[in-house]
């Protein structure tokens, strides 16, 4: 019996972990090239979810169209955040601290706009019953939605890695990551590359929130937690390594779920962030981040 329970928790962990992996990749896509601790990522995550809710439940669009709409709106929000908040500050010569503080400000504003528009009640989106119905294998169960989540996050990771290695824009993003000044000198349009990185990170986070909405629903408080998980995945994986972020996210999900076996589930976030503090203190490079020194400016 315990054996089955273990396997079931492992499966749950892999499903949750693949969503955490998406969060980690999405945050890395923004943080690595731009070096901005984009706290408003929490807002983009939340808004993508509420847009999805509004499109699907409020205006009755078909589900795939709503998802596409939400993902694209999130991308737009990311670009706007860079354009309206960060870019002017950068031109003023502001440092990382000012950017982060502005990001907090933007987060507070957006968070409360949500409370004004959608109130703080939990929201759910209706999906076809098939996606929720469990497939039993022996004593184990998982839903088609779970499988879709795992596959999507795998595809997203592969897509991002190929994009970064083999396309011109991806290479430009890595160049900006390594040395923004050098990249500018060689004629890379740094500002535009940053916009791409915000767009990419924001659409990825929208994909992550889609699974959250379809599976568990929405509440205005889930944004901060998503950003914290994303940060933990990014740091534990090693900043700049997309595979590392994904692996760390996956492990985090598995660890959280296996932890339920022994430890009451309300301590979940405490454990997650203890892992983070532990990693920051003892191995700040993470698993795969051999280039960490460059970030400690």
């Amino acid at each position, binding site marked *: 019996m315990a054996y089955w329970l273990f396997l079931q928790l492992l499966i749950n962990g892999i499903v949750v972990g693949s969503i955490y992996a998406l969060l980690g990749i999405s945050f890395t896509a923004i943080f690595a090239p731009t*070096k901005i*601790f984009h706290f408003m990522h929490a807002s983009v995550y939340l808004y993508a979810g509420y847009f999805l809710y509004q499109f699907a439940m409020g205006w009755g669009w078909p589900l795939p169209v709503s998802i596409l709409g939400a993902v694209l709106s999130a991308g737009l929000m990311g670009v706007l955040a860079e354009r309206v*908040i960060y870019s*002017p*500050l950068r031109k*003023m010569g*502001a440092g*990382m*601290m*000012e950017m*982060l*503080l*502005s990001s*907090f*400000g*933007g*987060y*507070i*504003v957006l*968070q*409360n*706009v949500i*409370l*004004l528009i959608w*109130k703080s009640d939990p929201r759910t989106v209706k999906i076809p019953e098939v996606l929720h119905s469990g497939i039993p294998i022996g004593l184990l169960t998982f839903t088609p939605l779970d499988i879709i989540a795992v596959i999507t996050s795998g595809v997203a990771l592969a897509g991002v890695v190929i994009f970064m290695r083999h396309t011109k824009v991806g290479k430009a993003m890595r160049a900006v990551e390594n040395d923004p000044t050098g990249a500018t000198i060689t004629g890379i349009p740094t500002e535009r590359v940053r916009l791409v990185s915000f767009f990419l990170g924001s659409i990825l986070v929208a994909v992550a929130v889609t699974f959250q909405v379809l599976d568990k629903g929405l509440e205005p408080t889930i944004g*901060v937690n998503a950003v*914290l998980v994303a*940060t933990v995945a990014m*740091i534990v994986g090693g900043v700049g390594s997309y595979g590392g972020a994904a692996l760390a996210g996956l492990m985090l999900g598995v660890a959280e779920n296996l932890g339920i076996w022994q430890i*009451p589930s*309300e*301590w979940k*976030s*405490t454990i997650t*962030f*203890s892992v*983070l*503090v532990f990693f*920051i*203190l003892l191995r*700040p490079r993470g698993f795969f981040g051999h280039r960490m020194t460059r*970030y*400690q*400016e």
Partner: protein
Amino acid sequence: MNYLIYVISLIAIYGILTASLNLSVGYTGILSVAQAAFMGIGAYAVGILLTEWGLNFFYALPVGMAIAGLTAGGLAWATLRLKGEYYVIASFGFQVIIYSILLNWISLTGGPFGIRQIPRPEAFGFTFLGPTRYAILTLAFLAISLWIAWRVGESPYGKVLRAIREDEAAAASIGKNVSRYKIVIFTVSAMLASVGGALYAGLITYIDPFTFTIHESIFILALVIIGGSGNVYGSVVGAAVLISIPEMLRFFDVPTTVASPIREILYGALMIIFLRFRPKGLLPERITRGVVR
């Protein structure tokens, strides 16, 4: 009238909190988002010791300060090596951990229900029961805290802190023990924050974990920025302006479910606008000319 006095107490409490954060953010350049955690430690220490143990407020206060100071010292010691974003993330993690302890250690903290009916402070047979008396108490604590912050910030000691903020390596190269300065200032800052938290618990007489979240930390940060980072008086001005203006919303006929988000939107927007157009805040930092040696 009572309401006005209540607002004054609130401003005094947030003045203490803001000045405390200003020491680490404004003077030393340690960007921490865990101030609400230390505020929470102070508030819960007083709440628990007063209701469960029946201790006097003025005995409970130093206990809270000691716990906050020790935690902060330990945190600062452990996170010394971290720079910039990494420090922020670590303090973030700390904030979340403290919040989750307050929320989940139900036998100690009452969990989500919080602690109710915290008695008002009492000393020498004199109870700070009425709002006016309590306001006087908070103002007295504000004065003491400001004096401490001023003594620390606007002294040769504060000059070293600013040197660390501007260039850590340079400060170390003229023989200043950067680590010790950072640990000390972070500890002092946390202890002052716990005083703010304790007074907050006494004022509201009811605390729950939802007050001491990351939002509260960001709010205190906003007060530091808008008031003027690196200026002790700016902190009080920032708290006074940002708490009194939104309180005026009450005199218009706005329901609370709308008024409180609008208030927060105002904070957030002001924070962005100030960082963009007046990064020095309402009262900018004053650099007095030092003795040239």
